[in-house]
């Protein structure tokens, strides 16, 4: 059991509606520091939940606290640099992998060691000069992870980071995440529809009701 100080996110009776349909309905959960996997079938609002945690969206009902304070008390842009979301579909900016990393680092006003950041995401240094349009989906996923790491976030929100990848690409991303977990500098909240993956990567597993 973790103490209160170790709780990252506390969600109380959170509800979200889109187009008159409940995407999340009175959802409550406690997400501690470390690595948490959120599992559940498609369409239960896992991606929506992640978007709530760095305020890309706000709930219609309920409350979300981050490190004991209401999430709305944080300045949204500063919160997003600290709690970084890597979306399910890669969406890099035009240019090279390095230019994407530099863009993210400059937004967070962080210095950047390109090689070290690429390595943390499981990419070798040759990727720095690669144009993002020339990357496979798996490489783009890892470039997205590297871009998020370039901001030195304290929390990483990962939305299905290995979806639509072959086994080899999935293993490389999982290895990179396992290494991040060992470093223990970054807490990870990961959404997955695979219970096996959730168990491999999560210290704690939160199941979302169907």
């Amino acid at each position, binding site marked *: 059991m973790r103490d209160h100080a170790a709780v990252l996110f506390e969600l109380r009776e959170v509800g979200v509606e*889109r*187009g008159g349909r409940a995407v999340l309905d009175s959802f409550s959960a406690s997400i501690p520091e470390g690595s948490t996997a959120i599992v559940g079938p498609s369409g239960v609002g896992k991606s929506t939940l992640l978007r709530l945690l*760095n*305020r*890309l*969206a*706000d709930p219609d009902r309920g409350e979300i606290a981050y490190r004991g304070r209401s999430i709305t008390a944080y300045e*949204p*842009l*500063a*919160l*997003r*640099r600290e709690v*970084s*979301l*890597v*979306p399910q*579909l890669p*969406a*890099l*900016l*035009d240019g090279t992998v390095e230019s994407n990393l530099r*863009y*993210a680092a400059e*937004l*967070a006003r962080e210095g950047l060691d390109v090689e070290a950041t690429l390595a943390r995401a499981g990419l070798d240094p040759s990727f720095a000069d690669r144009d993002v349009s020339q990357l496979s989906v798996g490489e783009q996923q890892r470039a*997205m992870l590297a*871009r*998020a790491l370039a*901001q030195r976030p304290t929390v990483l929100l990962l939305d299905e980071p290995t979806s639509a990848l072959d086994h080899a690409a999935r293993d490389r991303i999982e290895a990179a995440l396992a290494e991040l977990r060992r470093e223990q500098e970054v807490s990870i909240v990961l959404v997955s529809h695979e219970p096996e993956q959730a168990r491999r990567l999560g210290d704690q597993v939160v199941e979302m009701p169907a």
Partner: protein
Amino acid sequence: MSASIHVALWQVAASLVLVALAAAISFWQRADLERDILVATGRSIVQLTLVGYAIKLIFDADTIWLVLLLLAVMVFFGAITARHRAAKVPDSFGPLLIALALAGASTLGLVVALGIFDPTPRYLVPVGGMVIGNAMTASAVALNRLGDEMADARARIEATLALGATAREAAAPTVRRALRSGMIALVDSTKTTGLIFFPGTMVGMLLAGASPTDAVRLQLILLYTLLGSVSISALTATLLAYRHFFTPAAQLREL
């Protein structure tokens, strides 16, 4: 600047032969445009005749206030017309109205302040009409593109917001492309002017008996004035309108 010419009604009527030719081609090739051609011809006769009388009234009154009233009406209806092209942009009327008003006021103010044109109805009415008309087209094209791009680039914009970028930073590539779209048509036509086509003012002046030198000089002034107004209107409209896609907390609105 030029000797005036008289155009008789029978000459206008004779030019309708070419309208009949257009309708015949449409009918022959089943383009289904005969009705539109008829409506367009009818509207052009009615609208231009009414505008002709309005301009005559304003010229005869010779007061700046009537000119300003006419330009304000043009800005208002221009914004309404452009709004239909910008259907995917929420609440686009406000940005369009401000864009057209600013483009018209700044470019006309500048050409008068520089002494290029006298602040009289004879110059301000036709130049103002061209300035506002081109500004309307440019801002409508720019916002049309903005609406399409914001929908297409939604994932990328949200991924950029997720890094802590401001709405402006996240939308910057989209705004840039929208602005380019609004300006590119006039920039391209300015590049090819005189080579591929003769612009309307020059043709009008030559037909009215002006010297080619005067016709060319006036045409250049108008092209550069229009470039200014098109840039200002497209820039203003896109910079004001992109904000409507975001909440104050820099979230993409659900549309």
